């Protein structure tokens, strides 16, 4: 899940100008959140980056509009209705409607829309929230303002669109194992900020963790501590009590979103017993997710990482399957 800057960086290698389509409204359900973007390269065959739906007819129609508006050199708010006659006849149309703001933007560093979004992304990467407020002029031309304080995020006129750029959720992976490496790749693709900590230089290498945002070698409990905040998940895949106990003593008392540990039921119970002996309350110990991961049955590192990543998404979304039965598993 690349952010705005990463998407544009991917396009700049080949494109000078793109149509930027932003999902600004939806009726009848939308698989993507408002603010989702699809970039359409120039020339009728230009590259496509991002999406405003889950593919299919909606994105295809947005691409057509993008080609048209690139040629016309102007912005337009368009509505795409999923009312294809054939699909309706087959009972396959969902009947949804999507509003999109589609505008040509240049990638040469001078475009104010690009500058606004990049500024917001930079704020979010620095750990702050940012809001981009888009208003449409009488001629349909959008203008944008970036706010770092939501109380200042306002707009004139009767219609405006507000996009929030929050810092990415942090995932602290304790243990530079193969499972940790696979999880780092998956979590980064899911838009998380990935921090890997380990005490062993030989394992925690850039070669093994190319996608990690931070790769930290030292005393794991000390390295992880600064990241304990709301929205952070802590996943222990070291399978070694020397790191697990010091980390868990702090993380289970910290205001983090999720703490999980790769372990079988018996080992997980033993760790819980030690933590209670150390003075952690029943409620604090109960925050520990172990076994970790949704029970999809895989045993390879990538499969285990997939099950953990799926659980992290379920926890973020508050889904009931977020807590796994405390039996069996890894």
């Amino acid at each position, binding site marked *: 899940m690349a952010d705005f800057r990463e998407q544009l960086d991917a396009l700049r290698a080949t494109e000078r100008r793109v149509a930027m389509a932003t999902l600004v409204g939806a009726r009848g359900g939308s698989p993507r959140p408002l603010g989702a973007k699809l970039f359409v390269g120039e020339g009728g065959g230009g590259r496509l980056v991002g999406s405003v739906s889950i593919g299919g007819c909606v994105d295809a129609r947005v691409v057509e509009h993008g080609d048209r508006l690139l040629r016309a050199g102007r912005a337009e708010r368009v509505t795409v209705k999923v009312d294809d006659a054939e699909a309706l006849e087959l009972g396959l149309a969902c009947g949804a409607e999507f509003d999109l703001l589609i505008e040509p933007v240049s990638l040469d560093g001078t475009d104010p829309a690009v500058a606004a979004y990049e500024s917001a992304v930079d704020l979010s990467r620095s750990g702050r929230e940012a809001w981009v407020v888009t208003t449409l002029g009488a001629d349909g031309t959008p203008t944008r303002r970036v706010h770092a304080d939501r109380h200042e995020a306002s707009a004139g006129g009767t219609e405006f669109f507000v996009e929030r750029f929050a810092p990415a959720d942090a995932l602290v992976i304790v243990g530079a194992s193969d499972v940790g490496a696979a999880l780092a790749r998956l979590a980064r693709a899911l838009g998380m900020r990935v921090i890997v900590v380990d005490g*062993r*230089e030989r394992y925690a290498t850039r070669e093994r963790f190319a996608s990690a945002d931070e790769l930290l070698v030292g*005393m794991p409990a*000390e390295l992880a501590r600064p990241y304990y905040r709301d929205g952070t998940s802590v996943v222990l895949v*070291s399978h070694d009590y020397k790191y697990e106990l*010091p980390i868990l003593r702090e993380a289970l008392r910290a205001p983090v979103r999720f703490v999980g540990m790769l372990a079988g039921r018996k080992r997980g119970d033993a760790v819980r017993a030690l933590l209670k002996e150390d003075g952690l309350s029943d409620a604090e110990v109960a925050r520990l997710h172990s076994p970790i991961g949704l029970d999809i049955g895989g045993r390879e590192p990538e499969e285990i990482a997939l099950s953990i990543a799926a659980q992290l998404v379920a926890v973020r979304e508050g889904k009931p399957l977020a807590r796994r039965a405390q039996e069996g598993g890894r």
Partner: protein
Amino acid sequence: MSLPYGATVLEHFRHPRNQRPLDQPTAAHEGYNPLCGDRVRLEVRVEAGAIRAAAFTANACAICTASASLLTERVTGALVADVLALRESEVVAALDTEVPPARTACAVLPLRALRAALVGHSAPA
């Protein structure tokens, strides 16, 4: 929790002495075992050629943690010269258990970290 290393190791692993950051240390060193990942930081406050306070921080196994705990108890109040003369076999013996050869590195890691911390402190201040 049962450990195969006896009561002393278990006691000092579960209830380590002097496991905390030291206030105003005059010397410190973090030792680590690149194979198993044990990490232990020894901190001392040296005054007039003697160790007035010693403490440690560890993300380490039971043997290493217990060894650090025992070591900080032993060296508090001792002359730096005497501490530097400590033999590794003495530290291992203090664990009061049979330490397998493969785990000797864990047992002596705190002493080696302490020696490294004390470089430059061997003469009375």
